[in-house]
């Protein structure tokens, strides 16, 4: 089922959480809403679910206007960050709940069969008589997913589904979620503040800032062609140096960078820590090493340019220059954005 949002607005008291968002999620697509806290991503998800109502704009499920349909009748599966499993019911009862309260009457045996089937799908066979308190966090989230899927929802909505789990479990679960999605082909929208999770899992990433969409594209799009400084910063470590743009060239501490189609004036040069080569001499921005931090796969070097700006870059483990060494930063794949 395709989801379309047209100019959706939401205001809490005096705070405008969502400023006229328009978004399309194609049938069968897996889309991530990515943004820092306060960017409005959860609010958008809750409006799609019907847990909040939009103050303006429309939400369509396929051709049907779902804007004012209550959550109960909207036919969505919602997975909460903190699972929201019913603590007084067993795993089996939790999964069966939606089928029991449904307006569509089901045979007891049909419900039991479906519960077993779903437990197998989420790889928790045999755990149906346990209570939520007796299983691990990762297992709970899988039960929550099974419970949401039990009512055959038109769309699946997940609010920070792995936010409360530790790193290893998180990685396993998201690969697994991708598998399930590919198997079922259900339209899925999920919210996360973790860029790695969004890039790892989604077909398309929608990046939000202060209630607005700042970029909407495939993981490759947003990584290779960040729309602005915010996206660049948010997707990973980034260095920033002030630049002066003149006639399609950005000048940074005496070094020119291409900035085609940019308006003359103040700008900012952004680049990733992995895109720097340290040169003892030659071209580049002159800098001095302040500190070297060792990491399992590389060395992180903290340096200061002669212009007084801090820069961090990654060097191979063989990097042998120490504190106080002077040299030049050769920057690749740098991007220039207009100064805010």
């Amino acid at each position, binding site marked *: 089922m395709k989801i379309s949002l047209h100019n959706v607005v939401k205001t809490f008291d005096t705070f405008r959480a969502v400023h006229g968002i328009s978004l399309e999620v194609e049938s069968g697509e897996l889309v991530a809403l990515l943004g820092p806290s306060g960017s409005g991503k959860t609010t958008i998800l809750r409006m799609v679910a019907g847990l909040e109502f939009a103050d303006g704009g429309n939400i369509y499920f396929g051709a049907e206007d779902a804007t004012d349909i209550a959550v109960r009748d909207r036919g969505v599966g919602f997975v909460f960050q903190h699972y929201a499993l019913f603590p007084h019911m067993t795993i089996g009862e939790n999964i069966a709940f939606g089928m029991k*309260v449904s307006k569509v009457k089901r045979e007891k045996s049909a419900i039991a069969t479906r519960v077993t089937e779903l437990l197998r799908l989420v790889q928790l066979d045999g755990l149906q008589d346990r209570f939520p308190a007796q299983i691990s966090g990762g297992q709970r989230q899988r039960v929550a997913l099974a419970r949401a899927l039990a009512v055959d929802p038109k769309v699946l909505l997940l609010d920070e589904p792995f936010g409360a789990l530790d790193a290893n479990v998180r990685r396993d679960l998201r690969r697994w979620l991708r598998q399930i999605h590919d198997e079922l082909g259900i339209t899925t929208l999920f919210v996360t503040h973790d860029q790695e999770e969004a890039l790892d899992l989604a077909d398309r990433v929608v990046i939000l800032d202060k209630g607005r969409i700042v970029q909407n594209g495939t993981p490759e799009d947003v990584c290779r062609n960040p729309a602005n400084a915010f996206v660049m910063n948010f997707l990973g470590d980034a260095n920033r140096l002030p630049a002066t743009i003149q006639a399609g060239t950005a000048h940074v501490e005496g070094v020119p960078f291409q900035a085609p189609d940019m308006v003359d004036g103040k700008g900012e040069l952004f680049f990733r820590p992995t895109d720097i080569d340290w040169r003892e001499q030659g071209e580049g921005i002159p800098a001095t090493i302040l500190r070297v931090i060792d990491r399992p796969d590389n060395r992180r070097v903290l340096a200061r340019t002669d212009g007084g700006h801090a820069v961090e870059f990654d060097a191979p483990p063989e990097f042998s220059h120490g504190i106080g060494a002077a040299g030049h930063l050769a920057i690749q794949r740098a991007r220039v954005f207009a100064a805010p």
Partner: protein
Amino acid sequence: MNSKEMTRPRRKQPPRVGDHPAFRRSLLAVVILITLLMVVAPLLVIGVQAFSLGIGYFGETIANSDTRHAILLTALTALIAVPINTVFGIAAAWAITKFDFPGRRFLLVVIEIPFSISPIVAGVSYLFVYGLQGLFGDMLQSADVKILFALPGIVLASLFVTAPFVARELIPLMQAQGRDLEEAATSLGASGWRTFFSVTLPNIKWAMLYGIVLCNARVMGEFGAVSVVSGNIRGQTNTLPLHIELLYHDYNTVGAFAAASILALLAVVTLIAKVALERRGAGRRPTLAAPAPQTEI
């Protein structure tokens, strides 16, 4: 640390309050003495006095029609007031914890007023509202509705005094639980009632029972507010606590104690129920700036 070897706090360790055995012993002695004098002794006296003229006289007092009526009236009041305040408590806790509305914090404070106000104030204010010279006095009289010096007045006064008991147990619990469970249930297609009965209620039942037990004990024991509005008409509007006072004023000490022993028995039952519920995890959650429950006059 071996306390037997410690005649005084060792200098090398930072001295802690109460480390000195003399201090510890005297503190314990004082606490035990006060408990014996102020709690255990009076209860013992009730028991001893109630049966001082033999079990026959005890039975006679209890079987006395006025006493029987007082017991029934008290039970009837509890049967009406406790369910009403339970429903009120759930509704109030639900409203405060699950909705956002202006005046939420104010409502939270208002609900707790009966805890901090002397019950006699409640009684007197009911006189002013429903009494003959009161706000609705003429209206009520012309409609021939009797509130004061009758069961409705007693129930109203009891309701006022015990309004916060259930709400106060539920609010912190429901606040901690948040709205996720209800939202999950509705997103799965459950109706409002279904959500309440199969998701909300099972998760608050122990705290709710705890509140009900405390509320019931207080309704049955309420004296101050009820004594103002009931008019103390023997055999008609005398609740058990009022009846005890009446017997006492009649110089029927044994009768008073016999009746009092019933209330004391209720206290013991309440205590057992309270402990049993606390084992279930009810009533131990942090309360919201709750004043200590006031003791009865």
